């Protein structure tokens, strides 16, 4: 089959490309990566007393909000994986010897290496700090959309909190939509998933840590993603509606729509994009079909769906036209 042949050609081209990249990466003469530049800088010394050194200044009223870290999962002394089970503040902020050391009168205090005002470490290196512990998240992070766009972990996550807002269903969308402004507008449309009501999080569908799937979806395909909650649509049905098996988004706009059921447009036009069969399916409906004229069930209320209500598929032996 022609498509099969093309597939193998693409696969062949892909293997060559992959081999080129792998070969170059493993054996090729390439320059130091940008991210590596600040790795070469010598590290300052650590403080002598750890967090006690930090809190001698940052334990005041002005820094009170930072203390929320001790209510959260990062401030657990008995968990060796957390900052306070190890290098304390300097586990994330880097060695603070210079910052906490003495400075001459008029001399600017050196910044902490990471996660602070004027910190010299690059965003990539700061992310490495997080990923050093959260290694599971690194699985798809490299090469993912958010990593490619140089997002910092702290662009989304808050550490000095009792509960990170991005991990709570009701507050997460606000974090995501700080950047995804088009999606924010979409979720405010009249019909949508309950995102703006705090009943659904973006991560119910998306994997923000660089998922490999289309649109960084949580499941490998769009339909699998939808079937997580809408398993009644999965079938397989005796009489399937072919576009449904391919892609739910052929008819639905998952972020929000001006049409009921998140449809991309209203029936009958929605259906007439694909159906022009002899008889009633092909007839263009007009204002004549409104209650002010000759009200028609081909237009009003459910339109096509008033009869063909099993549009996602039917398991009825006589349901070939999706009306049983």
């Amino acid at each position, binding site marked *: 089959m022609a*498509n099969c042949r093309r597939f193998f050609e*693409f696969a062949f081209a892909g293997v060559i490309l992959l081999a080129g990249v792998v070969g170059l990466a493993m054996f090729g003469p390439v320059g130091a990566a940008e991210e590596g530049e600040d790795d070469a800088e010598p590290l300052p010394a650590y403080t002598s007393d750890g967090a006690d050194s930090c809190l001698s200044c940052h334990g005041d009223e002005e820094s009170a909000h930072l203390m929320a870290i001790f209510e959260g999962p990062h401030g657990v002394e008995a968990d060796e994986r957390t900052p306070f089970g190890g290098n304390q503040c300097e586990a994330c902020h880097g060695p603070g010897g210079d910052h906490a050391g003495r400075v001459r009168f008029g001399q600017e205090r050196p910044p902490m290496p990471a996660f602070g005002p004027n910190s010299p470490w690059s965003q990539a290196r700061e992310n490495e700090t997080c990923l050093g512990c959260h290694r599971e998240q690194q699985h*798809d992070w490299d090469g993912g959309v958010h990593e490619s766009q140089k997002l910092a972990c702290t662009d989304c996550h808050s550490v000095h909190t009792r509960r990170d807002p991005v991990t709570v269903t009701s507050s997460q969308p606000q974090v995501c939509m700080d950047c995804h402004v088009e999606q924010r507008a979409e979720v405010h449309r*009249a019909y949508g998933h309950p995102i703006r009501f705090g009943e659904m999080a973006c991560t119910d569908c998306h994997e923000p840590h660089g998922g*490999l799937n289309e649109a960084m979806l949580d499941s490998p395909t769009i339909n699998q993603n939808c079937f997580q909650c809408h398993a009644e649509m999965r079938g*397989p049905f005796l009489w399937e509606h072919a576009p449904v098996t391919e892609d739910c988004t052929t008819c639905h706009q998952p972020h929000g729509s001006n049409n009921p059921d998140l449809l991309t447009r*209203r029936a009958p036009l929605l259906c007439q994009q694909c159906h022009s069969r002899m008889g009633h399916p092909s007839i263009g409906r007009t204002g004549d079909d409104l209650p002010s004229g000759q009200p028609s069930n081909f237009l009003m209320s459910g339109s096509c769906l008033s009869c063909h209500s099993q549009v996602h598929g039917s398991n*009825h032996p006589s349901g070939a036209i999706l009306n049983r």
Partner: protein
Amino acid sequence: MTASQRHRRFQVRAVAFIGFLLMGMSVSGQDRATSQEEEESESTGPDTSEWICEDCPFVYGLSGSVLLGAGYVSDDLFDFGNYRGLEQEGVYGAAGVDLRYRTEDARYLDLYGERLGLDSRTLSVEGGRQGSYSVSLDYDETPYLDTSDTRTIFEGAGTANQTLPADWVRGGTTDEMTALAGSLHGVDIRHKRKTLGLALEVNRKSPWRYRVDVQQTRKEGNLIRGGSFIFRAAELASPVDYETTRVEAAVGYVRDRWQLEAAYHLSRFDNDNRSVRWQNPFAGINGADLGELAQPPENQFHQFMLSGSWRYSKWLMLSGHVAVGRSEQDEQFLAPTLNTSLANPSLPRSDLDGRVDTQIANLRATSNLTDRLRAKLQFRYDERDNKTPVDSFVQVVSDTFVMDERAYEPYSYERTSMNATLDYRVASDLKVTASATHKGMERSLQEVENTDTNLYSFKIRATPVSRLNVNVKASREERNNDLDPARLGPQVNPSLRRFHFAEKDRDALRFVADYALRENVAASLFAEFADEEFSDTEIGLSDGRARSYGLDVSATFSSDITAHAFVAFESLDATILGADNIEDAPWEARQSDDFRTAGIGLNFGDLPGKWVEGRLDFTYASADGDIEVQKRGSAPPFPTLETSRMTLEASAERELGERLNLRFGYLVGKLTEDDFFRDDVAPDTVPTLLSLGQRPLDGTVHVFNVMLRYRFSAD
């Protein structure tokens, strides 16, 4: 374009791309002395044996807060209560909880809940030992409230058996149903999801990771479903008694540079109802007095997935997953008809024995080829192989006529996608990204068996002046197919091109500019334009156009006071072409949707006096939808579809004592909607449709709540 031309174009592009990569390989850079070993030589870290952290306010014991109070809803408005659970006028209980109990050896118990007094409640309990294991139990309810002013004649509305009133008078049209007005009674269209989840995760100081998630969702209530008998339909409140069980179990092995995970996923769907039976309120033909709609059949899906990643160095990172899955469905078939006056055809077998196998592979390689150049290759494969046995079924159309048999059509497809992306940092303030994607799809039993889509994009990210970041992305998509019009069938317009596989060109341009007006004020502007044309389409969706613009402003006045505002406009236009008859009588429909969204928010982390926090959020969203159909003769235009939602939410909290706060909340929502498809459609408005008679949506609701917050402090 012929297949050979496409093939040749592909070859040219592939060769050019390979050449480009090979050129990249020849770019000489510094000898990569920094390799794996160097990366591994991490600092050994300080001696922390003397770091006692005596000033650290570790939190042991019980901490957090409980909110308890009451609220009042000013009016009944079903749609306002949708997803919120605030649909009824009157008093409701308002409660929330955020408690954590922690011991010095990292054991903990966490309790978190929101909206506990409402039907939209959520509650989570998690316990365990941090760094070793965790067990969590989650419960969540989500109400879906569609409409409350609907009326039906059916006894048993919302159940699997819906009958006509004893004194019902059938008619050929609704105006002949003389008992209609006296038989109507109200039925709310609503359902609710209740989800219970149990998760266990073992995360000890070992490379092995284990997790099990079990989730069960019950969805109960009803929804609107049409039941029809030959151009006569009745809207039914169809029962919803669904249960979905999901299980995910995984074991992983995580090392510094690579990790593997094997996971099993089960999704099982159970339905308490096999069908909905309803008596025909219209005068049936050929004795068609009783109909039966199949309910979604019980089914299950199993999938095994192996995923992994390998980070050889910063210069090579690989990740991917492969999965095999199977969907099965073997619910017993319903009878072909309930019409006893017709010969009930025999079935070739008692159930579908449905089986669909899926195979998935997603692989990605990323490499920082030089300090300026990064390449990414991604390959995706997705196959749906429908292995359900094929039989033919005699059709009893609408329980009225016995027609010819129809053969089962086992739809299958195979989807592949390959993407190559190059990022090049021209200068510290200028980065360009070029991307090329080829998508191929092969499907069975449709007039288009193969589609090939090529997508190219070019993106510039620049910082032309200090504090200004600009992103511009242009993309073009081209889709070709191997349409065989003969497969459309004898009664279908031969010019029809179904849009989801029709030949298509799509151009898009996106522009985003972020500007820091001052140190504490930032603005972001975006604009996006997209045009798509279905070049070969004479019947069907022929073109589409999208425009969107937006402006965001955020400001930080102090560490405790922040504000944000946004406004966005979007317009979507499309043209659909049709013909009343296959030979002639063309018509053209234009649909235009315009959306407007705006919002303002203020957050106060600390207020003067004993006020400890405050919040104000205003959101406005409205949309107009115009449908214009041009065809022979003149017809009155369609009214505009309009929706408008305005929400203002405010809250403030005041300290009453050392542990006690008082919280005030206010929410006002104003909703209006003009929907000519449903407005003014009473049960008898349409002669051939016995509708549920939804009414226009319009209303304003105020919600007040007062709660006491008691704070638990571990000290």
